């Protein structure tokens, strides 16, 4: 796996540039040239930020889940670095999706927050990721940390569809949404920037994952090296003061 990272390093610059290009085009088309929505007017433009971030956050969490399974199977420390990177990125993307969602919901639904299944599931996703990242900071042993974190990620991934299902049943029995989001079918002028932003963010995710995984991997190497140096120094000092020598 560390060989793969070295190979992928060559494409790092290209990936970053591609993400920048796609997102710039997507934002320009979305914010400037695309038409306002018939019902929602200019408010709809937040969709070009909100929807891609939400989709990419889910993609990152799916990668985290796959990586966690892979880690438990093969115990590759680089995969653990990848999982850690994916969790951090997914955490921030989910947060952005939640915040932009609340900003969109205020004018569209008349309220900042509603306990609709998607919102509930995203909030739980965010809390699970927060728990995952906190757990990682609290375990010293690298191997145990990776194993326990993988377990939390897998349990969370299995839980999310059930949260969605429960919230859906709960909502449909209590009250229907005041404004359905389903009635919004997209024209080509709106679909193009949305697709560009979505793909752009996916590429950005790949770019961030590469950078962050390398960083975490180097930190891991650095910690190991520091440990070795410390051990050497302690041994030298021990030998210097040892009266038997």
């Amino acid at each position, binding site marked *: 796996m560390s060989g793969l990272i070295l190979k992928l390093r060559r494409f790092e610059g290209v990936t970053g540039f591609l993400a920048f290009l796609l997102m710039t085009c997507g934002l320009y088309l979305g914010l400037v040239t695309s038409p306002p929505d018939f019902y929602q007017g200019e408010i709809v433009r937040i969709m070009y930020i909100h929807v891609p971030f939400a989709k990419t956050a889910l993609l990152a969490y799916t990668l985290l889940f796959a990586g966690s399974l892979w880690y438990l199977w093969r115990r590759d420390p680089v995969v653990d670095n990848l999982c850690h990177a994916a969790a951090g990125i997914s955490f921030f993307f989910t947060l952005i999706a939640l915040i932009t969602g609340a900003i969109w919901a205020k004018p569209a639904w008349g309220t900042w927050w509603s306990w609709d299944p998607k919102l509930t599931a995203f909030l739980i996703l965010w809390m699970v990721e927060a*728990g995952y990242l906190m*757990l990682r900071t609290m375990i010293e042993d690298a191997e145990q940390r990776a194993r326990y974190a993988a377990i939390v990620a897998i*349990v969370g991934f299995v839980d999310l569809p059930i*949260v969605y299902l429960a919230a859906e*049943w709960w909502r449909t029995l209590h009250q229907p949404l005041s404004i359905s989001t389903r009635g919004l079918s997209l024209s080509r002028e709106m679909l193009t920037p949305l697709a560009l932003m979505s793909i752009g963010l996916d590429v950005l995710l790949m770019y961030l994952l590469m950078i962050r995984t390398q960083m975490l991997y180097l930190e891991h190497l650095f910690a190991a090296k520091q440990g070795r140096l410390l051990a050497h120094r302690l041994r030298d000092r021990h030998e210097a003061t040892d009266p038997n020598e």
Partner: protein
Amino acid sequence: MRSFNLLYWILWKDILSEIRNRAALVSMLFFALNIILIFSVSFSMSDLEEMMPGLIWTAFGFTAVIGLSTSFVAETHNQCLEYYRLLPTPKGMIYLGKLCGNLLFIVIVGLALLPLFVLFLGLHVRQLSWLIAVVFLGALGLANLGTLFSALTVNLRAREVLFPLLLLPLSVPVFIGATEATAGILRGAPQAAYRHWLDLLGIFDLIFTLLSFWMFEWILDE
């Protein structure tokens, strides 16, 4: 067969140690009493009827967190976990043994909560057998994830903080299902009206018993 013996002995050990020091049950019951006290001073009695299912499950949920969070602490004394690692049986059986013990204790506390609610908050119990079934299914859901995360956080510095942070968001389906089913039962609705909530609890319990059974192998791994 040896695996089931192990399950039995772990359960028996937990029951015996609980009979001897009564630490978990007594602390859970007094915690529940405290929550009920807070409820009765912070809500007016007139609109309690509507909120009763939510109050029952809030009290029960937090009480279960208190009991479950310390479930593995006793196993860290005298390197008990090390001995568990050496056992030749599947590690999941240790999980099932601990799960049965935890389930037993929190079901006892859940059933003790109901008379307290009747006494202090004026709960009108209807369809008692179904209410007990909901308490059992909800308790199993909480005990499943609780036992898994209790084993996971037992050696951590901030165990008391992290345990509820991991457990509570993931048990949201249990709280939704159990609260809605309890609401149906207390309204005296026909069984068909809340049947699907029992199904949801059952599905959740089944999935997470199997998943935790499987995951426990990696918790005790070295």
